[in-house]
């Protein structure tokens, strides 16, 4: 039992243990510390070059709406289909700034970035894409980011003097693409163009390494008309992102693909039902992407998928916040999240409750793919290597 005098570390530990218990009972996973490492996992993947897909379970969601018994109905695909196939870390702590752009940038650099969340700036530290491309001499087409909000347009590469321009990922902003395809008009598409729920009145001007409209045809093999026609069948910005991701995987097959979901962040508007809708949609879209990974010849069998939130949301108990609506208090619930890894090289049905940090992702990817995340603050996660 936790009480008001518990330290943040104690609260985080409690959350992790609770989350683990939920998973053990609901998804039938084993406690990781009881298992030995197995060399068989990558045996089938040795034939093809390894690929990694990272999905940020965007906007942040709390246990009570996801992994707690009352929340599991909102994530049926994660619970029933994906977690039994994954290694799950139940205590991933984010010690950085809890704003979506700066936190996602911190995930991508492995360093707690400290820039203004609402500024259109590049991360200060090298991103995973730059480490990957520079160390492994990969072309620009091998690392891509699909980002939800126009404010994320500079996440592909840092301002670090040893890395930076020319070494980062290509960034697709599906909403920007759709706006361009419809020439800024077309109210039929407006539902796909929601942007920046935290400050709904603000959309930063675009600059930097953005995807150009003409590349729609060249890279994704999509005509503007086909793109517009398919977009009409979608219901949210994240669905648009997943559609683009599938097209990208099919046509370009990058080895490092980063997809940031954002629909859940509608919670900032204070409507609980829309927040829950966002979680359910994100759950479904994660499963859709996993199916795509398994069915696309370039990805099947050689791809490791990571899913993790950038952070959580405020607890109901903290009077300083307003529960699910925001992530402003910095309490343990909003800082303590989870991560699941599945696919090539990953043991299935295991849960670890030891503490890890959000910044551990990038050095772990480095160890998996063979680059050095030398400036990251995190450490490789041994259970995944």
């Amino acid at each position, binding site marked *: 039992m936790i009480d008001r005098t518990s330290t943040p570390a104690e609260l985080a530990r409690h959350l992790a243990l609770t989350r683990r218990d939920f998973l053990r009972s609901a998804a039938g996973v084993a406690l990781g510390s009881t298992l030995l490492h197995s060399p068989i996992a990558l045996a089938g993947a040795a034939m093809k070059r390894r690929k990694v897909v990272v999905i940020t379970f965007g906007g942040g969601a709390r246990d009570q709406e996801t992994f707690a018994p009352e929340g599991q109905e909102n994530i049926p695909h994660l619970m029933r289909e994906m977690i039994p196939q994954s290694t799950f870390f139940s205590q991933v702590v984010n010690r950085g700034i809890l704003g979506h752009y700066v936190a996602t940038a911190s995930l991508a650099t492995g360093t707690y970035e400290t820039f203004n969340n609402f500024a259109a700036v590049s991360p200060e530290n090298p991103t995973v894409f730059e480490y990957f491309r520079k160390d492994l001499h990969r072309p620009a087409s091998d690392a891509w980011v699909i980002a939800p909000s126009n404010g994320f347009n500079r996440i592909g590469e840092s301002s670090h003097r040893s890395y930076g321009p020319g070494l980062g990922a290509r960034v697709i902003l599906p909403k920007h693409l759709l706006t361009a395809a419809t020439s800024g008009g077309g109210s039929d598409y*407006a539902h796909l163009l929601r942007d920046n729920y935290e400050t709904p009145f603000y959309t930063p001007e675009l600059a930097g390494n953005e995807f150009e409209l003409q590349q729609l045809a060249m890279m994704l093999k999509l005509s503007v008309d086909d793109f517009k026609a398919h977009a009409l069948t979608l219901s949210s910005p994240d669905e648009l992102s997943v559609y683009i991701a599938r097209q990208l995987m099919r046509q370009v097959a990058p080895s490092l693909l980063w997809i940031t979901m954002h629909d859940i962040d509608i919670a900032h508007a*204070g409507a609980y039902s829309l927040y829950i809708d966002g979680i359910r949609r994100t759950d479904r879209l994660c499963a859709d992407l996993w199916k795509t990974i398994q069915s696309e010849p370039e990805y099947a069998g050689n791809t490791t998928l990571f899913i993790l939130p950038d952070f959580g949301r405020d607890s109901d108990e903290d009077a300083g916040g307003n529960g699910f609506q925001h992530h402003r208090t910095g309490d343990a619930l909003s800082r303590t999240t989870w991560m699941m890894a599945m696919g090539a090289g990953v043991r299935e049905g295991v849960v670890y409750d030891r503490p890890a940090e959000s910044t551990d992702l990038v050095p772990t990817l480095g160890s998996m793919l063979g680059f050095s995340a030398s400036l990251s603050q995190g450490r490789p996660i041994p259970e995944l290597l």
Partner: protein
Amino acid sequence: MQPTDLKPEQFNGYPPEARKLAANYISALRRLPLSFLPSLLREVVEYDFKFPVERRAVENELANLASLSPEQLKNWFQGFAQIHLSSQLENSDWVNAPSQFVEQLSAHLWSTHQLDAFRAAAVGYAERLRAAAPPEPPPIPRLGIAIVGQGVAAYDAPLFRKLRPHGAYFNHVEPENGLAMLLDAVGARAKAHPIPYAHWYIDGGQEARHAPALTCVSYAALQPARAALTAKMRAEIERPGMGPEALRTLMARMRPEDLGMTAATGEASDPVMERFQLKVLTESSGTQIFATTFAQWTAREALRRAQPLTLLVRFAPRQRQRPMNEMISEGTKPAELDPVGSLVDADFGAYYNWLNQQRLPGAEQSSFVAWFEGHNEAIAIGPAWPRGAQSNNVTDMKQLLG
């Protein structure tokens, strides 16, 4: 500038009552660390527009600070004293713009990884203050009422799931004239205990007929102010260089008259309520566009600030989700409503109303009722009701209120 350099004339920009208060306690203010003082001045500067219970809390806090010995002061504020501030913060005009200072301090704490230390200092201070100057117990037990589900003909999923463990769930409530009966009940409490701002009625739609003694806020009545606000926002975001922080600063500086919220000629003006309603619209997220968010947030702020003895909140259907730019535009055709989604919002909002009521003094004696409007389902929480119980008996509103 440091707090030790404070001079009475530096408060000349404050409203009259706030100026007097700050000048009276200037010796105490000079002894406080800069990482703390602007948070207190943010309350002081609003003193003229505060509810009575808030005024007494500020007065008690200042009196307590003035009474602390140097040794006590050191113990109370050692956590704050260890917070490192930037020179930019130290040089800002924190006397006249304490809210902006606090906002910038928040960003500074996040970026310098001092947030946890600040939180610990703040929690420790609040606990000491609560022990030294305990909050006033309410003169009568509080009563909270949430009415949810307006416009929903049928709903099959379980309601009040978050509240049920704390009280008794009823599934045979007689719904006839339920709204009027509940409003009459809160009106009767207002008449029996005529204390300013102690009895509230918040409506997420059009307010129903109610006793004049109730402090009433409604989404519909604020429609002109909401329209004025969103029009201003649209105009501002089109200006080059306007970012979210500049926008927030601009909203923080708005006055009721900027949104046409002042009383019409011949009507009594209530600056306290005008300022309260302004803040509901300008300091929150979603209250401008979603009626359910408006009702929940207004209730939260009423409970936190005015600490009412009675609070009835009637949720109403919000507009269906659309792109944000569309929702902040005042179109000519009425917005399509989402009654079922609004019921889910309101169900959770009712839980938050109860949580926030329970944070107030006298929680163990407080009661709370939530009712699915026009239907048979309700939950009653309070000393008279067993926890986690269910009643299948026919029940009327009077019985629910105990």
